């Protein structure tokens, strides 16, 4: 049977449509994915992402282990800094993408994908070789994501933390609705927003309080359906769909998290070699010029030749057009290159476009 987050009962009470995702029973939508998507773009939405895993590294050598395991440079992190990164295998393939949150002088929390948690813990434990304390905290920790332009206005009614001063990818340990939590200015939607990491036992209290505050701004609880369309419009790759252990972060357009000069780390040698030669294929964004839904696995054509494969696709709720991500050979990866996606035997024309599809207008901070 699929696992349940501490907010399962809350989802049922809200009338959520549930699906199994990564071994968990999760809300797909509450009032409707399109409506929830729009609420996050225009106002705010609240997601339960407690299915995600949390692995804690602790001790005098925790930083060293973290530096060895992840491609980004952990040395830059002060306490209360978060960082997007990848966990690579010896071939430079992406085992998982993650956020590294430094929660103490000798303490890091790695926030990983739900479906990969067990694999990640095994890999981290193996690579650790007894240097740091490794603890899978996934069962003890819940994670809420409050996303959208009104997020700060909503959250500041519930916490004494100086949210206006919290930069993107900064975090603070504070109280939310009277419960201790790590609040970070992070998310997976392309909007401003916060993620709240807290004890499982406090999840329901905080969820209910945030939901009540959110309703006053006409925000909505939002499910995985909206989460997927929001992240795809923002051009954010999903591990398991857009990258996996057989693709490198350089191919996936994540060269910015691969710090080849920081010293050795797992996968560095093959990544350095690929950085030198250039990746043979690249993850690109594309837009179709006719209605049709591109799906994971659909072939991509250019000039009568198969040049790649779709990894994600949808009708963009914001743009109204049909968009996707996919790998193509590097020679045809430039924006404006004409392509066609083969959908049920028909080659639907389109072109490669810049990522992201959607970029928020940065606003003056809400007063």
């Amino acid at each position, binding site marked *: 049977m699929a696992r349940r987050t501490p907010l399962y009962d809350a989802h049922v009470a809200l009338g959520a*449509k549930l699906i199994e995702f990564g071994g968990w029973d999760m809300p*797909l939508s509450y009032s409707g*994915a399109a409506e929830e998507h729009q609420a996050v773009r225009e106002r705010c939405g609240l997601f339960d992402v407690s299915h995600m895993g949390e692995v804690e590294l602790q001790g005098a050598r925790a930083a060293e282990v973290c530096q060895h395991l992840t491609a980004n440079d952990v040395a830059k992190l002060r306490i209360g800094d978060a960082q997007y990164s990848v966990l690579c295998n010896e071939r430079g393939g992406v085992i998982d993408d993650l956020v590294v949150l430094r929660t103490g002088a000798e303490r890091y929390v790695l926030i990983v994908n739900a479906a990969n948690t067990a694999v990640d813990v095994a890999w981290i434990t193996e690579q650790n070789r007894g240097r740091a304390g490794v603890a899978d905290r996934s069962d003890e920790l819940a994670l809420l994501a409050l996303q959208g332009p009104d997020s700060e206005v909503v959250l500041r009614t519930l916490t004494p933390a100086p949210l206006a001063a919290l930069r993107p990818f900064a975090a603070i340990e504070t109280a939310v609705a009277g419960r201790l939590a790590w609040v970070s200015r992070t998310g997976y939607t392309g909007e401003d927003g916060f993620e709240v990491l807290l004890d499982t036992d406090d999840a329901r209290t905080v969820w209910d309080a945030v939901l009540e505050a959110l309703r006053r701004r006409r925000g909505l609880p939002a499910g995985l359906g909206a989460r*997927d369309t929001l992240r795809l419009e923002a051009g954010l790759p999903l591990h398991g769909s857009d990258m996996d252990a057989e693709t490198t972060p350089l191919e996936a357009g994540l060269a910015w998290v691969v710090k080849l000069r920081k010293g050795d780390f797992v996968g560095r040698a093959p990544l350095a070699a690929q950085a030198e030669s250039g990746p043979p294929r690249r993850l690109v964004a594309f837009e179709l010029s006719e209605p049709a*839904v591109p799906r994971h696995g659909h072939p991509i054509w250019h000039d009568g030749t198969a040049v790649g494969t779709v990894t994600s696709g*949808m*009708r963009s709720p914001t743009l109204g057009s049909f968009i996707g991500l996919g790998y193509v050979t590097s020679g045809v990866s430039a924006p404006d290159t004409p392509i066609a996606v083969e959908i*049920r035997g028909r080659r639907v024309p389109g072109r490669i476009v810049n990522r992201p599809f959607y970029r928020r207008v940065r606003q003056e901070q809400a007063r």
Partner: protein
Amino acid sequence: MNFPDTLRYTKEHEWLRLEGQEGVIGITDFAQDSLGDVVFVELPAAGATLTQGQAFGVVESNKTVSDLFAPVSGRVVAVNETLREKPEQVNADPYGGGWMLRIALARPDEAGALLDAKAYQALVASEQAK
């Protein structure tokens, strides 16, 4: 959920409304609710000939793609072209503005084998219990 008594239903969640020698086809309230927000509908051109049970098109949400099956045999005489621009009509009004095809029935007796509203409702209840 609404299942009008005046319609006949398939186990694959299409409905058929008989209008003389013609039939109008769409998907049920249950089907549209299960799919979520419909973003794309692919239908045959007018003039196409369908055989009962044949896959004649697809309806897609961002989550999933689902085949459409012909409730009865016949020739397509009209296609709801507005679904090309407004596929969300399938969600908003599955038995009205969300209609898909109008066909000239080849074998009107086929309709008799379809489910009535009561039988279809029982089918939906059993699927929801899964």
